[in-house]
């Protein structure tokens, strides 16, 4: 009892297809007997594979101490299809049925208890059926598990060891605790999923990952897809090329194998899409027939290697064109954006301005704030909890609504389309979802994006900073639109602007700290004022800013007279619930203190007591006042040490716990993708108590500076005060692997400085 059983999410799970879509309940649930018989058949087939990689049991010497070694990992994917005629209620139509079978088998040597625990339990969804209109999908999963003991004997688990944890008609979930599994054993197991799909012509994205935290001696993939299928594929970041051919039946045959893959363990500042080897396939049932050109279906049998990324850009353009037609070209859709413009004009007037006299950028900013205030911060009693927690909501940038808002107000906006800087390269995209979007004003090229309610107009999201290969989408607006082709073809694609990159001084965390010894001289009494700027702000804003404060700050900026509560009190309906709102706001305000304590503890990595005078001074939600400033006073424990009549203050620890690179991460040759360039600054003023002098000030000074960043400390003293200015800066959001040593240089200096102390010596 009391022991936790960790359930390993098998490596296999990352590779499993997720093909399920809509379907009607037409199929029969397989009964237990049939399922067992099929399981037996499946096991017989898989165990009989004549694949030499599953016969190896010797381990290269370099991996002899590894926790686990994947000896072989093979995926077998087969897909077949047929057409039938079926009655759909309104008439007969063609019915496309597909059978997709994926078998993923892995043989892994488990060398220690940790590996045994990881693999000792296996969970899987045995049978799943989804339902909907028109198409029908169901999936059945089979597993086989055998344990190969060091003496070569093989023990296979039997069906009775498998238990059901969900036994529904549309889904059965099962798990198995693998018997007789011990360190030194080889676990040989597979998960096979058989899926029946009807009328599903959608693209099935598939990934083959060629990295893992364990060494892999052989990783292979084989697919046989019926002649009606179409595939496109691409290898990324040095992954081997797929061998694709067709057999006599015109089936598409796909093969790839890689041997001796070393373990990949660095997870610090890695962009998997840019740096790690993998292969992507898009598999779909080809279709050429009525409406196919609007369904984006491929030609049956089509095989495309490294499809031009423009095709996926076109997909994105078509999608946005349809959105433009429905949500803007149609008058009903545009009305909402007209309302925002009208509100923006009204609120400009309320604050003594004139909307039409604003510059285009100022208009864009006012529209941005109006959209945020009226559509995101607007109060809704039926979503009370959600509104109070709005600071933690994240949005996708809202490129399209922002574009439409600007367009409706007569500005000249466009949608910038590019890749995420840590995602898939622009020229290697294989799906419209690889692309990211942001609205911008042509001419000034200023970006507008809302990923949180704290975002500012013209602030560039970190994931598109520095994008050079960008596209600009605008939309035709003809008087009349006839037919699907026209509706999907409104988007104009042009070269987009280069997105700027913020510098380290723009993303900054500044701590102003006035420090004195507590009266008992055991701790430090700290008054702290923190200023966060740029991309550094969001996390702290989400934790510390209250919805009520956010709303009220914007309400005043918009020139609305009444506070939210006053407004509610005056409403015929809302006055009935205003008391509730007050109660909910009061509770949120009560919890704010815990948030301040938790933030301070997290930052300084020390015990915080007696927190008081905590408040958010500036919310940092306007581009004209972008700094987020908050302050508090508290006792910071553990940094004052008594030494005879004197006191030692561990000033180095005032910088909290800087990021320490683990020993195993210090050796690195791959490039470094950091979130953004950034700086941290501490301006510390320490009162020297009466009757004491401060010593050791000179030794606090430090300067390590190179092309990647710097760590500097400047310390000085007067009779009454020690002043210490600590600055650390990561100058870029990206460094080449060769510069890793430079990063380590100043990061290590910062870690070293943790040990810094000064002496308050009794006179």
């Amino acid at each position, binding site marked *: *009892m*009391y*022991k*936790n*059983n960790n359930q390993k999410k098998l490596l296999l799970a990352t590779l499993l297809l997720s093909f399920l879509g809509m379907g009607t309940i037409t199929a029969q649930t397989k009964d237990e007997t049939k399922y067992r018989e099929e399981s037996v058949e499946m096991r017989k087939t898989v165990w009989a594979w004549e694949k030499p990689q599953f016969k190896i049991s010797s381990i290269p010497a370099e991996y002899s*101490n*590894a*926790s*686990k070694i994947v000896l072989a990992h093979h995926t077998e994917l087969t897909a077949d299809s047929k057409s039938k005629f079926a009655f759909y209620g309104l008439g007969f139509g063609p019915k496309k049925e597909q059978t997709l079978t994926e078998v993923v088998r892995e043989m892994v040597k488990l*060398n*220690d*208890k*940790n*590996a*045994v*625990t990881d693999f*000792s*339990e296996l969970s899987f969804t045995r049978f799943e059926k989804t339902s909907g209109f028109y198409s029908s999908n169901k999936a059945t999963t089979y597993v086989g598990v055998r344990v190969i003991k060091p003496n070569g004997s093989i023990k296979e688990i039997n069906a009775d*060891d498998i*238990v059901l*944890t*969900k036994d529904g008609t549309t889904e059965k*979930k099962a*798990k198995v*605790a693998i*018997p*007789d*599994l*011990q360190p030194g054993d080889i676990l040989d197991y597979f998960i096979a999923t058989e899926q029946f799909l009807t009328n599903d012509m959608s693209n099935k994205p598939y990934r083959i990952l060629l990295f893992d935290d364990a060494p892999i001696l052989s990783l292979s993939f084989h697919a046989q897809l019926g002649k009606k299928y179409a595939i496109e594929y691409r290898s990324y970041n040095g992954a081997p090329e797929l061998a694709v051919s067709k057999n006599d039946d015109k089936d598409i045959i796909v093969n790839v194998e890689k041997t001796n893959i070393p373990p990949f363990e660095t997870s610090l500042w890695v962009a998997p899409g840019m740096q790690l080897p993998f292969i992507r396939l898009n598999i779909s049932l080809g279709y050429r027939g009525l409406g196919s050109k609007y369904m984006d279906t491929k030609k049956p049998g089509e095989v495309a290697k490294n499809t031009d990324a423009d095709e996926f850009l076109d997909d994105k353009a078509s999608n946005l064109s349809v959105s433009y037609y429905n949500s803007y070209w149609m008058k009903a859709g545009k009305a909402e954006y007209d309302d925002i413009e009208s509100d923006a004009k009204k609120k400009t007037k309320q604050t003594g301005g004139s909307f039409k006299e604003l510059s285009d950028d100022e208009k864009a900013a006012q529209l941005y704030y109006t959209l945020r205030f009226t559509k995101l911060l607007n109060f809704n*009693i039926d979503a*009370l*909890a959600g509104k109070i927690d709005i600071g933690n909501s994240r949005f996708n940038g809202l490129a399209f609504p922002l574009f439409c808002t600007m367009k409706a107000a007569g500005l000249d906006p466009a949608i910038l389309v590019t890749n995420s800087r840590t995602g898939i390269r622009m020229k290697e995209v294989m799906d419209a979802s690889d692309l990211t979007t942001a609205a911008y004003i042509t001419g000034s090229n200023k970006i507008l994006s809302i990923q949180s309610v704290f975002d500012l107009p013209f602030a560039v999201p970190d994931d598109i900073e520095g994008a050079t290969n960008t596209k600009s989408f605008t939309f035709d607006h003809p008087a009349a639109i006839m037919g699907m082709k026209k509706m999907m073809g409104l988007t104009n694609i042009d070269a987009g602007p280069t997105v700027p990159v913020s510098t380290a001084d723009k993303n900054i965390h500044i701590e102003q700290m006035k420090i004195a010894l507590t009266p008992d001289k*055991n701790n430090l009494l700290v008054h702290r004022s923190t200023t966060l700027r740029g991309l550094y702000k969001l996390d702290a804003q989400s934790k510390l800013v209250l919805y009520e404060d956010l709303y009220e700050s914007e309400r005043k900026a918009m020139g609305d007279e009444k506070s939210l509560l006053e407004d509610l009190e005056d409403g015929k309906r809302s006055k009935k*619930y205003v*008391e*509730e*709102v007050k*109660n*909910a706001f009061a*509770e949120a305000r*009560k919890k704010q203190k815990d948030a301040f304590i938790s933030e301070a503890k997290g930052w300084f990595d020390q015990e915080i007591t007696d927190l008081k005078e905590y408040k958010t001074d500036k919310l940092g939600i306007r581009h004209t006042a972008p700094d987020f400033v908050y302050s508090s006073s508290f006792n910071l*424990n*553990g940094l*004052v*040490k*008594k*030494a*005879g*009549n004197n006191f*030692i203050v561990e000033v180095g620890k005032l910088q909290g716990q800087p990021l*320490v690179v683990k*020993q*195993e991460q210090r050796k690195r040759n791959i490039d470094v993708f950091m979130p953004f360039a950034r700086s941290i600054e501490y301006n510390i003023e320490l009162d020297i108590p009466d009757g004491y002098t401060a*010593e*050791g000030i000179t030794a606090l000074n430090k300067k390590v500076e190179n092309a990647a960043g710097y760590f500097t400390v400047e310390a000085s003293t007067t009779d009454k005060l020690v002043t210490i200015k600590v600055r650390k800066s990561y100058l870029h959001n990206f460094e080449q692997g060769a510069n890793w040593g430079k990063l380590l240089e100043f990061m290590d200096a910062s*870690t070293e400085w943790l*040990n810094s*102390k000064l*002496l308050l*010596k009794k006179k």
Partner: protein
Amino acid sequence: MKKTALLLLFFVATHFLFAQTNTDDDKNVVISKSKREFKFVKGNSENPVQIKEKSSRLYACNNYRTDIQVAEFYNGYESIDDVTIYVNDSKKHGITPRYEYYNADGIFYSDAHVCFFNLPLLKKGSNSEVIFEKTTIDPHYFTSVYFMEEQAVEEQEIKLVVPSWMQLEIKEYNFKAFGIQKSVTQDGDETVYSYTMKNIPAMNTEHAAPGPSYYTPHILVLCKSAQPKEEKYVYFSTVKEQYAWYKKLVKEIGNDEQVVKEKTEEIIKGISNEEEKVKTIFQWVQDNIRYIAFENGIAGFKPEKAQEVLRKKYGDCKGMANLLTVMLRSIKLDARRCWIGTKHIAYDYSTPSLSVDNHMICAWMNKGKPTFLDATEKYIGFGEVAERIQGRQTLIENADQYLLERVPVATYLQNTATETRQFAIEGNSLKGHVLQVWKGENKEWLLSALADIKQDKQENALKQFLAEDNQHFEISNLVIKNMTNYNAPLQVEYDVFWKDVLTVFDKDTYLELDNRRNFDNFKIDTTKRKLPYWFDYKNNLIFETEIALPAGKKASSLPEKISISRPAYSFAAGYTVSPGKILYRSEIVLNSTELKPENFSQWNKDIEQLSNFYNQQIVLTQQ
């Protein structure tokens, strides 16, 4: 874990599985009225006595509208017959309860299920009501009724309706602080036990606290016998019946001693001493049988066959205890299965009930004296006893009889961890040798933590742990002894170069020697904590350092020693000087694992004194 613990969980955990625990000051939603009735009724031939439960809870919204999650558990012996939900007196709310398998922490598979849904409270002042109707099909499994809920309860009535053909005893626990009124009335043939109460606070869960049976008001229902028709059914009238029920299950196991014997003889080949045989078998089970629990239906109480546990190399506490028993018996040693309630449970066998125990161990009877073997404790030594079973009463198998004995209580010395350092000063650094030794549960804790780490990362992880994550504490020549022999203390030796640990200001050198700072800042937050604090085990941490001083250096200031001695714990630390040397010794003793709330304030003061001691530095001056 046995089913009883699960049953306890069901009663206690009902309604607070998914939501956060309400704190005292969170009174937005309360249960304004709760009525729960448990009625013994005549059943069918298979289950002649059943218990029908009808519970109605009226939730009131005090401050602002919200949703709460409601959850009710059931299992193979309990069914949910009906759920009625009213939102503001209306049944038109579109709520559909979901019924799902409940994956209890630490149990691989059980028959535990949960019915749950979100219940809206539409506005301040509104009510929502939930009525559950449930049936328990066997009085064996109807053991307790807990009176606390996730929300505070303003008014509650709990009734037990007992017909004259049902014999039971009710034991009341933790009533004192809650003003619970009891009445017993006769309604025709039925005796009605009524408990009424007002203002019962919300269930408060705290980290490292006693189990709920220690502090929440509840009743144990001891079903003794029933005669609904002609036939009389005896449940647990005394512990004798409970033992008989367990014994019957044991007889039904179907152990194959021959299969087990072959393996046992292979394991002890070449060993002649009986105690050595037991030690070897015990560690073999610890090392080779993984803890995986199946608790579906009777599997919650009946151990898995020994040969099956041996084949699968996994089992739960019952499976391991049974396997150990059969293994020892197969080589003609006297071994017994022992039922036991861990420290988490407040009762002993003076209240015969399935709520009393939740665990099974094995006892090797050596000349009539038991040595308790708990193979779920993966790294404990032979003869060592884990805190969670120390002093607990155990029901020991003894043919048709039984023995009731208490597991011995170990002192803190069982778990002593010692660290001895010898250092010399080199510039601003210390260089020297360290020996660390862990015993008992300290050893078990460290070995468990290491086993969770991949073997190729273990040495680095251990070095990081020993260095307190300080890159200046450079460890080399690390030697680990007794990693795989749990009957000997775990021992680690290494050399250290502790870079720049000395700070020089002018002529003086300052040094903070104790970087372990055991129990530093270990204060209890008295503004939040209401329940006693339970440490995992008794503890004894000894830390000694000797520093050789270079010629010409002397200690000009040493921190004043501290010595705090309380009945439950003691802290002592201080420096002594001998020619050319400074000696430091600290010792922390936890005599008892419980800190009572009335002692929190003293504990905090003592911890502050300890922290203040740690915050003092040695001053060395050039002579």
